[in-house]
Structures are given as structure tokens and as C-alpha cells.
């Protein structure tokens, strides 16, 4: 009864937790836990109060008091809700006064040490995550104001790498503390776990979430936690990242608790599995070739075709068998009845069917996850390639103004390790006008000698052109004027394979204009080809007219056309010589320096190193991730949400597994009792049925992995055509990321593990006497 009460309590605490959150939203924040904490040791909590100082209602005595009242009221409600065993109305039994059976006499519901292990574990895991990540990636100067910090030796890992390592470490901490707590208590200890997570685990993510909302809190903590917030910000929605991570840690704790209980629940740590697997494999024969091949066929070719093939084969088999039995029976009827009996023995039980369905369900989930995520990665990689082909990995500039001393700066940058190339540039926005059209574009002054070190621009020039032609504008073959178009066409007729890069036949145009390189889409919309004249107009003229600054205009000749594969770039970017840009915009030196690094994932750190080498302020460096933050964080968020949605398939499949294993448990009640009578402990029974669920999960995960990869390879090799007008990409891109793929399988196995826990516990609670009685 006590246990029931405490389970009820545990359930009800979630109610209290919900209260706490609702109250938080209502401005009565910290009611759930903070109220108590503040009352008990308000003094020691001064720093937190100071941090939260900007939210006066929280500290207001009235609010505080009502918060505590609500909190106590919640608990009172819970206490009231606990069902109590009715008092016995009959007189004392003959056993009154006899010694209670010792195990019941020693029973305890609540262990403070377990609460400590669980709550402390989750809190410790969170702190490990935050601190380890900060330590691992510190030395990466971010771009906030203030001089570059000293790296001071220390480990300087890329932020995502640091996050991954810290997450793994934190998950281990949570797992281990769950394991220790459960194995000490020798039970699952749900009340302790619930209280621990709610009162000790929740504050950190709540604090982080509040930090986004409350400016003063951000001022206090934002700087110290910037590594954490940076990684969370990569997703675009930091709160989502915090809560997902928190959920992950809680999951690790739950896994630890379960594993600890299973390993040690019956009194001693026993991690051996040989016998349990031996039994489990006989119960659910998942790894049978027919089942695996059948499921794989369904995954690869859909449901209908393999089913048709199966039925055809079965029909043929049955026909042959029946003919054989009939001919056998003609000579010896008894032999035929025996053969019929054997045929019947081969029929499959419904549990087998359920098993196959569950394997298939998990397989479908994993397969879908792998395919969709790989295609999304393909799009992301394609986008990244195109963006990084046109843009630099990092840009060094001053906080304000231009960079006249760019040559000196480049000299310094050259010494920073990890830099693959650098080039100075000037960037500005202008109008570009041809005879046919006008467009607003971004103009970039480049150094053709070095631009190839950083971007793919030289390779993107169509028709085998070269950027060097910008140096020698007189060599740009100008196209004949439209009115002369008919007559001199002979010269260009031979090699006019391409409309755009047609070499005009008349090198008679006198005016030598500086060259300009424009994108394919822009060329199409301006209706110009190589050799045509375009006017570039800058609204920011230096001369003042009667109505304000007069726009400055200059004529250029199209020297080359490029195609980057990214519509935005092909329609919005034009390139001229750095020197021309300096003249045109009246800029000393350059706007900044574009950098290419060897490892793009390390760009942020290297950008930081560059700033450090330059001596910090007034220089700053932004990496590609930061410059395209919204785009990539949107992509990542999309992928994450997609992953979560597709994981729902796996959760549904896990439901199937629960049903299958419960069916197994019901089917095997007698066997469970016998096994217990033969000396298998409760833990052993749990292990057997967990192994059965896990077998399904592993088989489904591997099948899904196999079929998912097969589909990805198919998409990659054979290709699925896309409409280039819409997607600007010829075929569906696929990129198989090993980590992500493995993660899909691991998630599936973890989910099936969690799903099998309930039926496995049910199995272990079968009383041997019950099963042996049921005849």
C-alpha cells in the first residue's frame, strides 16, 4: 500500500510540477521549487536573487508567500489524494503477534540516498555538460565586444565537437548515477526519481530558458555561458536545444535506473547474459533467415510485391505438398495423416506474426529516418558547397570603416595555422543597367590573382574563360552594336555554340572599358552577353548636387559570365577588379579579407585565432556559419524537427513491441513460473524479456539501416530527377552522414529497450505459484 501511495505521489508530483510551470508563466515563477528554496535558505541564494533581480514580482513578499502557500497546498492535495487501506473490521487473526515474514518487515519505501543519487546525478550531469563544454571550447574568442581573451593553452575544440564530448560525458554521469541509485535501492524508486528530476534537474534548463527572456539575467550569466548559448543558438531556437538536451539527460538517467535495477534489483550486480539470451532466442526466433529476408524485401520493395511473390511460392509449395501427401495416402493412409500432422506443426503462431510486424515497424522507422535525413543532409551539403564556393569561410574586417592596411594584415594572417588562402575584397551595393533592363546587385571588387585561393569563382566561369581578362580590358571582345548585328555575323558564326559567350567578330569597338564578371541569371535578365556594355550606378556618390549626393555611374564591359549553381548568387553578384572598386567607391585598401580554412568545421576557432593574431579590436572575424546563421540554423531546425517527427514512427513501432512482448509474457506465464521454480531470479526474468524486445529492436534497426542505406545508394547512383526551374539542382541530393545514420539505429534500439522494460517487469512479477496453478 505504501508503494502504491508513493507511486500515486510520484504521479501527482508531476501535477505539482505542472503547477510550478504554469505559475512561472504567470509571473509567480519559482513557486514549485524556488519558493521552498527561498524560504529555507534565502540567504544562501542571494546570488540567484541578485541575478533575478530584474524580476521584482518574484521577490515581492506577497508573491513569495502565495507561492509557498500554493506549493504547500499542492502537497496537501496530493497527501489528501493518497488512498489508504481500509481498517480491518474483523477481530485479530490467529497469527496476531507472530513474527512478520522478514522481507516484508524490512520493507522501506523511500531512500534519501537514492533521491540524492538521482537528483544529484541529473544536476551533476547538467553542470558537467555546461562546464566541460565551456572548458573544452574556451579559448575561442567569440565576436562580442572587448579584446580577445587569452587562450591560455587549454583545449580549444570546435564548439560542436566540444558539445558532443560534453554531452556524452554528461549522459554517462546521468546514467551512472541512475545505475548507482537504483542498484543501491534495489528497486526502480520512481518517487525518488520524479522528485530528483523535478527539484534538482529542472532549475538549470529553466534558468537557461529564462535567460533568453530576462535581460538582467542575461547580463549576469550570458557572458559566462556564451559557449553553451552559442551551440544552442545554432539551432535558431535555443530553448528547444536546452529542453531537448535536458530530455536526453533525463533519458540517460532513466536508462541508468533501469539498467541498475535489472542488474542489481535482485540483490547483486549480475551483468552476465548468456543464459537469458539462450532462453530469449528460443522464445522469439527473430534471427531466422526467412523472417529477416521477408522483412527486408518488404522494406525494399514495398508491401505488395513481396507479398505476391510469397503467396505464389506458398501456393506452389502447398500444391506440391498436397499432391505428395495424396499419393502417399493412396498407398498408406496412416503415412499421409502423419505427413499432414507435420504440415500443421510448421504453421506459425500469432506471436511470430507479431514479431515480424514489430521488426518491420522498427525497420520502416529507421529506414525512413535514414533516407529523409540523408536527403536533407544532401540538400544542406549542396547548399553549403554552393555558399562556400562563392563566399569565404571567414571574413576579417574592422568593426567600422575599411581596411587600408590590408596587405600588412594579410601578412599577419598568413602565419596563422589552418588558413588555406586569403584574398582582399571590396563589397558594395549598386544598380546595374543594360540596354534592356536594370537590376540591383552586390558588386565585389576582387583580386583575380588570389581570389581562386578562397572561392570557386575562377572555376565557375562559363565557356572556359579566365578572370585574368579583367587585367586586360582591351582584350575583351566587344560585341557589335545591335544595328550592325546582321552584317558581321560571319566572324562569330563558327564558334557561336553558346548564346551568352558568343565571340563577336568585330574587334573594332574603340572604347576600352573595365571588365565586369556577372552571373548567368543576371546576364539572362539583363539580356547581355560577354562583350556587352553595362552601366553600374552607385547611389552613394561623393559629389553633391542641388538635391543631395549625385549617383555615380560608370560603364563596364561584360568580361565573363559565371555559374555558381546558386540562384541568389547567379542573379545578385557581379565582380570587378579591386582597383576599379577602390576608384569607384573611393575606398582606401579593401573592405575586408576573405579567408579559406582547411577544415570548414573549425572555421570559427580559426577566425578567433586570426583576430588574436591581429591583436583583437578593431579587427573582427566572422565565420561562414555566423554569416549564414539564419539559413543554416533554419536547415538544422528543420532537420531536427523532421528527425523528431520520423522518430514517432519508431515510437509507434515501439508500441508494437510492447504489445508483442506483453503477448509473449501472457503466453509464457507458465514457463516464467517454471523458470522461477528452477531458480531464475526476478532480475533474470526481466533480462530474458528485455532481451526478447531488444532482439526485435536490433533486428529491425539493422534491417532499417541496411534498407535505408540501400535506398540512399539507389537515389545517389540512379538519381531522382528534380525540376531545375524549381530546385536549381538537377537531381535529389543524398549525403550519408555516418554519425546521423548510426544515431538513427541507436535511437531505435534505445526506444525498443525502453519499450520492453514495462512488459519485462510485468513478466518478473508473475508469481510462480500463480503460473503453476493455472492448469
Amino acid at each position, binding site marked *: 500500500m505504501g508503494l502504491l501511495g508513493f507511486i500515486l505521489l510520484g504521479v501527482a508530483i508531476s501535477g505539482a510540477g505542472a503547477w510550478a510551470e504554469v505559475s512561472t508563466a504567470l509571473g509567480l515563477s519559482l513557486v514549485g521549487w524556488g519558493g521552498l528554496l527561498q524560504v529555507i535558505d534565502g540567504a544562501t541564494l542571494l546570488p540567484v536573487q541578485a541575478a533575478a533581480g530584474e524580476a521584482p514580482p518574484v521577490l515581492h513578499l506577497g508573491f513569495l508567500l502565495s507561492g509557498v502557500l500554493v506549493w504547500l497546498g499542492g502537497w496537501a492535495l496530493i497527501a489528501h489524494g493518497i488512498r489508504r487501506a481500509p481498517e480491518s473490521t474483523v477481530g485479530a487473526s*490467529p497469527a496476531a503477534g507472530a513474527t512478520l*515474514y*522478514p522481507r516484508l518487515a524490512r520493507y522501506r519505501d523511500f531512500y534519501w540516498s537514492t533521491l540524492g543519487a538521482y537528483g544529484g546525478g541529473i544536476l551533476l550531469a547538467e553542470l558537467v555538460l555546461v562546464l566541460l563544454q565551456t572548458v573544452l571550447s574556451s579559448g575561442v574568442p567569440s565576436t562580442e565586444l572587448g579584446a580577445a581573451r587569452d587562450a591560455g593553452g587549454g583545449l580549444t575544440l570546435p564548439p560542436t565537437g566540444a558539445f558532443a564530448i560534453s554531452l556524452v560525458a554528461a549522459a554517462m554521469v546521468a546514467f551512472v548515477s541512475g545505475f548507482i541509485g537504483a542498484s543501491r535501492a534495489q528497486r526502480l524508486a520512481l518517487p525518488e526519481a520524479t522528485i530528483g528530476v523535478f527539484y534538482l534537474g529542472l532549475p538549470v534548463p529553466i534558468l537557461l530558458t529564462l535567460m533568453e527572456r530576462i535581460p538582467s539575467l542575461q547580463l549576469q550569466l550570458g557572458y559566462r555561458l556564451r559557449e553553451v548559448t552559442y551551440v544552442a543558438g545554432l539551432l535558431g531556437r535555443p530553448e528547444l536545444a536546452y529542453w531537448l538536451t535536458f530530455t536526453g539527460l533525463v533519458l540517460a538517467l532513466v536508462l541508468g535506473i533501469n539498467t541498475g535495477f535489472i542488474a542489481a534489483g535482485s540483490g547483486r550486480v*549480475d551483468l552476465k547474459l548468456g543464459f537469458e539470451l539462450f532462453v530469449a532466442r528460443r522464445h522469439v526466433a527473430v534471427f531466422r533467415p526467412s523472417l529477416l529476408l521477408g522483412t527486408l524485401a518488404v522494406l525494399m520493395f514495398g508491401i505488395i510485391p513481396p507479398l505476391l511473390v510469397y503467396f505464389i511460392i506458398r501456393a506452389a509449395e502447398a500444391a506440391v505438398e498436397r499432391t505428395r501427401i495424396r499419393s502417399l495416402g493412396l498407398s498408406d493412409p496412416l503415412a499421409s495423416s502423419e505427413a499432414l500432422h507435420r504440415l500443421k506443426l510448421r504453421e506459425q503462431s500469432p506471436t511470430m506474426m507479431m514479431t515480424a510486424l514489430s521488426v518491420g515497424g522498427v525497420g520502416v522507422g529507421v529506414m525512413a529516418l535514414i533516407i529523409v535525413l540523408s536527403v536533407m543532409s544532401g540538400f544542406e551539403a549542396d547548399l553549403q558547397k554552393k555558399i562556400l564556393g562563392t563566399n569565404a569561410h571567414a571574413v576579417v574586417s574592422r568593426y567600422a570603416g575599411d581596411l587600408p592596411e590590408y596587405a600588412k594584415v594579410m601578412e599577419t594572417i598568413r602565419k596563422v595555422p589552418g588558413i588555406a588562402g586569403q584574398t582582399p575584397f571590396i563589397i558594395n551595393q549598386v544598380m546595374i543597367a543594360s540596354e534592356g533592363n536594370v537590376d540591383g546587385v552586390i558588386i565585389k571588387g576582387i583580386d583575380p590573382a588570389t581570389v581562386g585561393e578562397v572561392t570557386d569563382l575562377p572555376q565557375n566561369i562559363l565557356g572556359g574563360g579566365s578572370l585574368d581578362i579583367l587585367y586586360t580590358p582591351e582584350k575583351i571582345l566587344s560585341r557589335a552594336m545591335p544595328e550592325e548585328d546582321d552584317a558581321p555575323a560571319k566572324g562569330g558564326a563558327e564558334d557561336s555554340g553558346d548564346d551568352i559567350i558568343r565571340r563577336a567578330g568585330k574587334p573594332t569597338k574603340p572604347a576600352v572599358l573595365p571588365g565586369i564578371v556577372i552571373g548567368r541569371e543576371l546576364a539572362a535578365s539583363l539580356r547581355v552577353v560577354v562583350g556587352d556594355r553595362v552601366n553600374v550606378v552607385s547611389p552613394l556618390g561623393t559629389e553633391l548636387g542641388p538635391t543631395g549626393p549625385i549617383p555615380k555611374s560608370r560603364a563596364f564591359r561584360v568580361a565573363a559570365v559565371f555559374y555558381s549553381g546558386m540562384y541568389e548568387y547567379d542573379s545578385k553578384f557581379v565582380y570587378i577588379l579591386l582597383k576599379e572598386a577602390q576608384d569607384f567607391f573611393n575606398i582606401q585598401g579593401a573592405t575586408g579579407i576573405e579567408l579559406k580554412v582547411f577544415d570548414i568545421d573549425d572555421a570559427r576557432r580559426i577566425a578567433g585565432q586570426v583576430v588574436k593574431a591581429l591583436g583583437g579590436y578593431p579587427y573582427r572575424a566572422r565565420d561562414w556559419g555566423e554569416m549564414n546563421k539564419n539559413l543554416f540554423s533554419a536547415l538544422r531546425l528543420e532537420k531536427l524537427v523532421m528527425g523528431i517527427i520520423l522518430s514517432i514512427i519508431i515510437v509507434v513501432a515501439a508500441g508494437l513491441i510492447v504489445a508483442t512482448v506483453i503477448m509473449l509474457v501472457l503466453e509464457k506465464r507458465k514457463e516464467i513460473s*517454471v523458470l522461477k*521454480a*528452477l531458480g531464475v531470479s526476478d532480475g*533474470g526474468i526481466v533480462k530474458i524479456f528485455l532481451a526478447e524486445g531488444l532482439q526485435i529492436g536490433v533486428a529491425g534497426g539493422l534491417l532499417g539501416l541496411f534498407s535505408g542505406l540501400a535506398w540512399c545508394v539507389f537515389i545517389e547512383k540512379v538519381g531522382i530527377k528534380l525540376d531545375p526551374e524549381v530546385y536549381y539542382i538537377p537531381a535529389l541530393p543524398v549525403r550519408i552522414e555516418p554519425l546521423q545514420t548510426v544515431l538513427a539505429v541507436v535511437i531505435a534500439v534505445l526506444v525498443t529497450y525502453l519499450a520492453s522494460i514495462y512488459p519485462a517487469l510485468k513478466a518478473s512479477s508473475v508469481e510462480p*505459484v500463480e503460473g503453476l496453478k493455472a*492448469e
Partner: protein
Amino acid sequence: MALLSIRNVFKSYFLHGKRIDVLRAVSLDLEKGELVSLVGASGAGKSTFLHVLGTLDAPAAGEVFFEDRSVFSMNDAEIAEFRNRTIGFVFQSHYLLPEFTALENVAMPALIQRRERAGAYAYARELLERVGLGQRVDHRPGELSGGEAQRVALARALVLKPAILLADEPTGNLDPATGEGIHQLLRDVNRELGITAVVVTHNETLARSMPRRLRLAGGQVTEA
């Protein structure tokens, strides 16, 4: 020192919401090597008594001592191990595991103890030969007759040479001739291995042939 002592044990079961006290302050000593029969009316609690003896069921009060050690003070793993090493069960129905062959079924207690397979199988084979089933080792329970299955079950109960054998109407489902074969085996086992055996039975002739006879009635166990 008695091998197994029961002290002041109470146990009830519930039928249609009514408590039936089947054991009331039962105390009993079993010595090593004894062959004991237990008789009583249906529903008197013979099986319950046997289950409490074999730790399959916990008493409401009272204690069971094995070699002066309180059995129910042990934790779950220790009790399971105690059951595994010290007690062999034979039930009215054979309760063999249907997915395993006769040999595997017999070796099961040894496998549960994580003994090495080859050795366990070798001894199991020997035992099966001893009960006259040398030719049936690779058959599943479904392919065995009732008497054969019961002999396999007996071999399974003996594979770890337990100190105590608890048999709950082992011949209840068998014809008299086959049943007599099982009884003979039980007597042989008791004599040769010195195993303490408690046999619950309705068969008065069999009960009378045992050196010590117990009767369970009205919640009390008496010597008969």
C-alpha cells in the same frame, strides 16, 4: 540439526474474497535423507505448504530455516539461488519448457547456474539414461508421452543433486503402472543420493509405503 525447519508458519489464500487459513502456526523438522509423504483433502493446502517449503511462496508470518539459516531473510537473488541449488521440484504436470529439447530441459538448472554447457549436457544425458530415456534426448516435450515427460521432469529436478526434492502429486496424471515406475524412481533417488524427499499424494498405498507420513488438516500438520 534438522535440514529444514519450519517455525510457526501462517499462510492463507483467498477464495471468493474470503480468507482461508491453510497453515496455522505450523512447525515441522525434516531430517536429511528422510522420505516423507504428505496427504490431505483437496484444498487443505498441501500444495501451498510445499510451495512455502520450496520458497515459491512467502508465508504471512513465521520462518523457514535451512541448516539454521532463515531462508526468507535472504534477498531475491539469494532465494533464487537457494531454490536453484537446494531444491528440486516435480509437479503434477511435467512443466517442461516447450521450446527446448529433453536434454536442454534437464540441463536447465545447471545452465541457470551458468555452468559450462558441455558438462551440463553430459550429466543431463547420463541422468536421462538413468531414467530410461537415453533415446529421447533430442525430442521436444510435445513429442514425449506423459510418463516420459514426467521422468524428464524428475531428471531435471535432480540434475544439481539438490538436498531436498519436493514432489506435488507427481503421478496424479499418470496411469497406475507408469505411476508406480515414477514412485520406484523416487525411492531409488532417495536411497542412492540421500535426498530428502517430500511427496504429496492422494495415493494411500504409496503414502503408507513411506517411512514418515504427514497429514495436513485444519491448518495443522500431524504425523500419521
